[in-house]
């Protein structure tokens, strides 16, 4: 699948801001395919000595948008929200399927063309974070958003601050307690 040309995404964002609802419907699949493509490329892990970390790779897509002067803050925040959510869906879905495959103990044919076909260790942490995050978001939506942007979206604290129009200090404090709470949910000894 080809990458969506950047200007197309930008134009859709502008159109959408100007009240074109249909533009948004077109935008989402474009962004989603872009993210899926990135995820696919990365998941195949074709190289280990790359200089670009995967998070940076994702960020690069984001940054391309951040630097688009034509799109205003509101739109970008919205975009990151959507993109991070999509990334969350993709990765959680992937982790669940891994877990199922493992449980089912099916023999999986080896193919290098599709990472989805691999027998795998489940990725329990991602699933558990996803679950716990629902509880946190119900209690504090903004804090939940920070976790999604950082953990699933791969944004840095400064970027999150810019996107959510908060101070970097606030983002750091909120992330710290959210992380601590998630830790208590995932790691604390039972009972």
């Amino acid at each position, binding site marked *: 699948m080809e990458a969506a040309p950047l200007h197309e995404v930008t134009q859709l964002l502008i159109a959408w801001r100007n009240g074109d609802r249909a533009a948004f419907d077109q935008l989402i699949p474009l962004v989603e395919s872009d993210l899926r493509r990135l995820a696919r490329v990365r998941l195949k892990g074709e190289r280990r000595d790359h200089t670009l970390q995967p998070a940076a790779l994702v960020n690069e897509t984001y940054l391309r948008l951040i630097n688009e002067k034509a799109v205003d803050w509101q739109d970008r925040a919205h975009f990151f929200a959507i993109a991070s959510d999509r990334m969350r869906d993709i990765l959680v879905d992937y982790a669940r399927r891994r877990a199922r495959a493992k449980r089912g103990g099916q023999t999986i044919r080896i193919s290098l063309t599709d990472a989805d076909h691999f027998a795998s260790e489940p990725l329990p942490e991602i699933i558990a974070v996803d679950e716990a995050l629902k509880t946190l978001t119900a209690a504090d939506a903004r804090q939940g958003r920070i976790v999604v942007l950082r953990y699933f979206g*791969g944004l840095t604290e400064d970027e999150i601050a810019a996107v959510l129009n908060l101070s970097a200090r606030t983002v750091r404090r909120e992330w710290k307690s959210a992380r601590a709470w998630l830790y208590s949910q995932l790691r604390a000894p039972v009972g």
Partner: protein
Amino acid sequence: MTPERWQHIKALYEEAAELSAAARSAWLVRLEAEDAALRREVEAMLAADQDSRFLDEPALAQTERAAETERRAALIGQRLGHYQVLSAIGAGGMGEIYLARDLQLEREVALKVLPAEFTTDAERVRRFAREAHAVSALNHPNIITIHEIGAVENIHYIVTEYVVGETLRQRLMAAPQQRLTAAAALELAVQIAAALVAAHEAGITHRDIKPENVMVRRDGIVKVLDFGLAKLTEPQALEATSNVAGLSTESGIVMGTPRYMSPEQARGERVDARTDIFSLGGLLYEMVAGCAPFVSATTGETIAAILRDEPLPLAQYATNSPGELERIISQALRKERADRYQTAAALLADLKELKQQLELQTRLGEAAFVVPPSGGASRQPSLQPQGGTTNVVTTNKDLIVLADFENKTGEAVFDGTLKQGLAMQLRQSPFLSLFPEERVRHTLRLMKLSPEECVTAKIAQEICLRHNLKAFIAGSIAPMGSHYVITLEALQGQTGWPLETEQVEAKSKEQVLRALSQAAARLRATLGESLSSIQQFDKELEETTTEKLEAFQAYALGYEQTLNGRLMDAIQLYRRAVELDPDFSYAWSMLSIHHSVFGRPGLAAEYAEKAYLLKERVSDYEQLQVTFRYHYNFTGDLHKALDAATLFKRIYPRTSTAPIDLLVAYDLLGRHEQAVAEGREAIQLNPNFAPAYFYLGRSLVRANRFAEAKDIFQQALAQKFDLTNIHAALYLIACAEGDAAGMQQQLDWAQGRPDEFVAFDWQAGAAACAGQGRKAQEFARRAIDAAARGNTQELAARFATEQALRGVLLEDYAQAEADALHGLQLARGRASLPRAALALALCGAAQQVKPLIDELSQRYPEDTVSNTIWLPTIRAALALQHGDAAQALEQLQPTSSYEAAAEFWPQTLRGQAYLQLGRGTEAAAEFQKILAQRGHAPLSPLYPLAHLGLARAATLTGATAQRRQAYEAFFVLWQEADADLPLLLAAQREFQPSLG
């Protein structure tokens, strides 16, 4: 959890997180009293501080890591084609690498799986495979051998030899401060450059030289990986996209680290071999500095630095790195490729030169002395000619002529002795160089004088005039009561005016040599040699030669005969010298050289060892030569011989023997280009030294440059250097070129000479090469008998065992076995043992081979040729006889870098093994090598048989046209072969089965 409760917990947590550990416990105890559940929750959150890595990594990266682990694990235990994947051994430049077992050949291999992104374009894969195979086929010791490039169910993989070692990256990571010493870095860089030279000569550019693509074996041998692979990973339209972004994620392909990219690569331009030179420069920089020359936080910035910045000076990282290294690196790292080294060979030459310099410094101890710069004049104040107005200065560019001593004593013992003594004394100076004796004699002939004419002061001056030399030395000895007075006079070459006179007195005849040494040392100083140089290279004659004047005289007279070309007489005199003084190293050395010339390598080795054991008693000049000869003739360790010769040449750059020593070692190591260069230098230094012509010509023959070789030989013959070896070489060339008249000319020359029997050996070789078994046998018989009668048993043994090998090839096994055993009876030496063993192995007489293998390895444990060629080849022959072709291939692995001295046997056996395994392409490659290198053994029957091998390989691969051509070429070469040769009949049946 209600929002309110969460805000409460969060506030408590933030309060607690601020506290110190002690305060925190007290705080928690208070909270417990208030609300036990709340305390548990907050405490559990505080525990997160212990695990800073929790959630630190984004989910995508986590997933990626997990997927990668699985993917690697998934292949383990599986089979891909006939490879069983055993374990993951790392990730290379591209794709995962596994240790796997080749189930067909029963050996371990490295298997790299290529990511699917890079294998979708079949044409690209084909192009890559073609390049990779071409480079691998070069069989270069520093290029990894590719066994196969294949695909099973869309999984593309590359199978290579399994190298036990580490990548250069790993080595750097393990080194202190991630960097190596200049010497260690050069050691590796020289090998990488050598690999590039070979690949570039074959027209292939690596394009992705970086530490991850260089393996370093435990023994220090470097293997460069992934030639041509970069072609697969480059974006398709690299040439078209000239923007930097085109290299990163635009096309969905993340390029590798850009750190070692050349500017033209970074710009996305077309690249050529010079891109590898830039990358190697970067690599070398990193090895010494501990970090890459261009490195930045982001890909974009790194690329910008490559295009724009100059790297920091090396001295910033490694204070003691040699300035020359900095120069080499910066020349490799020029932004404009036209400003860089233009070839890897030029870079390699500079790297080697520097490496040798560093080694020399280490060995001699840096403080000891500084090698005089060639052509420079770092000397004591110049001397003033007495009574002259011109300032005559001898620099080390000038050659000095020695006149004969004027003997006014009437005592014969001084005749010839003192001149030779003075020559030996002056020869140890790296500063002064004597006009070679051979050139003196040549000039005498030009002057219509006898070459043995006494060189008076007048004649010496005339020689100076003819050759524009600046000085000559005339000496005399005169009686003074019971004492002797020795006078040495240095005179101006052009005018004959005296420059300097030294006079010393000897109280007795026994002290004459010592007095001569003192006079010579003083003369060296006044001629401009620095005192430190004289101190470093001044041993007195008496301690370096012999205390017995008679022994010295015998030696001096022997040397005279050597120069006159009367080698037999010379041997007698040297023999007398060692009888008079068994500790006379020089005389043993001369005996070694002479016996070597007479085809007695056993005696040559024995005497070389004797000379070597006495090496403390000779001058540095002689010591270097003695060391070379010891390794070349006695231990057979060619690398040590090469080291000794290199050092010799470095200290005495103007002696013509040093390049010849280097040449013979290079020749055996297959480094013909270097050998040729040394030969040319030797001739330049001393155009009247006959053996130099023979050796240079032989190197040219070995390099397949027959026309140039003939030219050199003709030059030698024109000078009346009528060496048998030169005629032998001319015979070989004529035979290889199918020039019957030329062959006859050499046979005519040999007729009636005392060593005429060697011509029988030539003819035996030519007959066997033409498939004439009976004729070969007859000539060989005559050669063997004559050599045995002539008291050259070793030569006879060599003839016999060579004939045994011919017999094997022509399938006369009974005769071959008899010849091999006969050869062993005549002499068991370096030449006969391995050939007999190989012949017997090929005859199927395995039980007789084992003791021969043991004898070879015990008697010549350090012999490079024996260890790397003969023993593996003999073992491979045994394996082939057992029908174990895979084992044979395995055995032959060590021979690959030494095949120049192997007379086509390893290539032939490897070709046979591949034929047995049905691997036609690889078999063809081996036979092609033989056909491309006829000069290595022009008379070997393995040459015509390589055509037959090629034909059979082509049958396997179905290359019809090539098959026909190869058979026809074979039949042409064997058109006069014995018609009943089974081999020939079989070939005819294969070619046209209908006639069979």
